[in-house]
């Protein structure tokens, strides 16, 4: 315990360096704006801006991106409340009561509730994170390649079992992501592999950023163009100090929902396929069930804004837990962060806690700092965010395209990658129209190289017998859970058929 406090104190020393504080503030502000824009969320912001972080050292870069992640979670609520359109899918539940409140002229109350609930959710989850991460990392240190492979199977299985998307389409997305990661040189023999049409650009492989920016930058804009054709109605918000204080007072009644949402969000956030969106929906559902007058939900109940907002922030911290301790991202955004760590020369996984103490604890401490700044900036600049919601799409779209093109070019400095990114963006959009989920593919391309290496190593140890994944205790238990998750949709269907059958 004392040791952890010491490490956290050292972390604060890193996080409070002037450069890092500046990066936190910049990241939070950018994140708030990105989150506030309809259609753009944390994953888009992190994917598009990752190439810009080559300017600062890895710790600073990670702190900056984590701050964007946080800020975007706060910001998503702004367009949910003011426009009735979720700023990101994670803020869907916030529209249920946020929009009615805004229509009643209580937009400021809803915005303050969202900001404070996000702060509480963020802080509770960071405290949980601080407590859970070191022991989990210590356990993970004993993992060999069969355990690593089993963990990755578990991550993919959560998409099949829990995401609720079409199963063949989810599996297809996972497979294609893994296959794209196999392009380049074979890791064992060093032979060129999957060099399509003998184009030399494929020799250096497909950088995960090319897929991530293609899908979350270009594809997202195409998607938003299609979905936002209609006019949007911005609600009016009156903001002054007196009303702000009154809003804070009103929050007393929602404390229970906020705390509950924080815990729920954190634990749901740890699961790769679940994360902030289902976490916040669940928190909303629980708050409604527990309420004395559930019928007031959906008509402008402040707890209906506070519960999902505390949950989605808590979930974003939760998703960082498996990323830092196990090297398995808990969300698409953390998948991109993980890919970024590889670019910066850090090896994700439990060894980080041994070899890169400064990085890990600096990041954890920066999450505390980011929370405080996000709350302050959010409340102070509410009018500015409302202004940004009016940003015409004809300016936003080309700006994002430009960021995507230069950002896609920067890591490898090869025009081949820019073309590939365009291809992924367009194909991704066309597939998404038919409900092919995109997040599994992004997770898969990041995990792909590790998945292949751990599988081949394990099979080599076992002389080709896949039994190795089941006979070792830890790997075996993880695999069993993964298989249960894979079979979950089937079990549900059997259960339904059984119940539906006449007695």
């Amino acid at each position, binding site marked *: 315990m004392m040791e952890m406090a010491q490490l956290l104190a050292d972390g604060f020393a890193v996080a409070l360096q002037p450069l890092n504080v500046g990066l936190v503030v910049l990241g939070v502000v950018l994140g708030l704006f990105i989150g506030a824009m309809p259609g753009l969320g944390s994953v888009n912001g992190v994917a598009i801006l990752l190439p810009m972080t080559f300017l600062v050292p890895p710790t600073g870069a990670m702190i900056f991106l984590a701050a964007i992640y946080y800020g975007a979670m706060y910001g998503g609520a702004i367009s949910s409340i003011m426009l009735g359109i979720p700023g990101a899918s994670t803020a869907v539940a916030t529209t249920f009561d946020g929009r009615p409140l805004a229509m009643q002229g209580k937009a400021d109350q809803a915005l303050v509730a969202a900001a404070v609930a996000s702060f509480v959710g963020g802080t509770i989850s960071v405290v949980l994170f601080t407590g859970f991460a070191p022991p989990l990392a210590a356990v993970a240190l004993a993992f060999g390649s069969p355990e690593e492979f089993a963990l990755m199977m578990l991550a993919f299985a959560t998409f099949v079992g829990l995401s609720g998307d079409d199963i063949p*389409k989810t599996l297809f997305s996972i497979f294609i992501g893994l*296959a794209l990661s*196999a392009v380049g040189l074979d890791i064992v023999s060093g032979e060129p592999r999957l060099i399509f049409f003998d184009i030399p650009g494929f020799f250096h492989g497909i950088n995960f950023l090319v897929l991530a920016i293609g899908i979350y930058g270009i594809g997202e804009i195409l998607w938003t163009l299609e979905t936002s054709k209609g006019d949007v109605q911005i609600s009016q918000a009156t903001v002054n100090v007196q009303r702000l204080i009154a809003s804070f007072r009103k929050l007393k009644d929602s404390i229970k929902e906020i705390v509950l949402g924080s815990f729920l969000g954190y634990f749901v956030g740890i699961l790769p396929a679940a994360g902030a969106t289902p976490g916040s929906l669940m928190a909303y559902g629980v708050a409604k069930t527990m309420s004395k007058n559930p019928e007031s939900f959906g008509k402008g109940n402040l707890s209906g804004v506070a519960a999902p907002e505390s949950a989605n922030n808590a979930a974003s911290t939760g998703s960082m837990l498996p990323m830092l301790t196990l090297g398995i991202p808990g969300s698409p955004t953390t998948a991109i962060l993980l890919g970024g760590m590889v670019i910066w020369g850090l090896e994700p996984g439990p060894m980080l806690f041994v070899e890169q103490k400064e990085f890990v604890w600096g990041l954890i401490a920066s999450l505390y700092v980011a929370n405080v700044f996000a709350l302050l900036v959010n409340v102070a600049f509410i009018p500015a965010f409302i202004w940004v919601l009016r940003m015409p799409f004809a300016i936003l779209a080309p700006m994002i395209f430009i960021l995507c093109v230069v950002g896609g070019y920067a890591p490898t400095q090869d025009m081949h990658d820019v073309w590939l990114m365009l291809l992924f963006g367009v194909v991704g959009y066309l597939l998404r129209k038919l409900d092919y989920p995109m997040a599994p593919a992004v997770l898969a391309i990041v995990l792909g190289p590790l998945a292949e290496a751990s599988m081949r190593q394990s099979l080599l140890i076992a002389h080709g017998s896949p039994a190795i994944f089941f006979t070792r205790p830890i790997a075996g238990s993880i695999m069993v859970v993964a298989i249960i998750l894979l079979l979950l949709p089937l079990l549900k269907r059997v259960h339904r058929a059984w119940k539906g059958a006449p007695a």
Partner: protein
Amino acid sequence: MNRAEPVMAVIMALCSIGLMVKSAELPVGWIPDEGPGGGAFPFWLGAGMLVCCIWTFVKWLRGRSPYSGSDKPYMDRQTLMLFVTAAGSLTVMIGLIHFIGVYFAVPALLVFYVRFVGRHSWWLTAALAAATPVVTFFFFEIALRITLPKGHTEPMFYPLYDMFL
């Protein structure tokens, strides 16, 4: 939507077969003392993709796909126009980078979008078209030392290099 579902499944199935064929250029079987061959991993992934495509197709045949019998068009006229404008202008811009470089292709895209699609004033258009490449230059070339492609406009930048680098 009803027709788009099987068409997409067939296209993706063809891509999966292509991937399997391409993977088979490397050994896909077991190599003694070396483990699985270099092509095995992508080969079996391709096989998995193919199975998923067939699965989707069969689901559609049996009327179990969410789009079975849907008469909603995959893309209505308005969406198609938006898509062609956005994806088309981006394609042209990336193509232009090869000839006139980033610093001229970027303003070209901005002028097209802000002025002709968004119908904003020439003042705003000019301000954005002028400021964006300047900011990009200072961020990438000066701060990050990453040279962006300039095509035939490279010689125009020699004086700037002399000044800042």
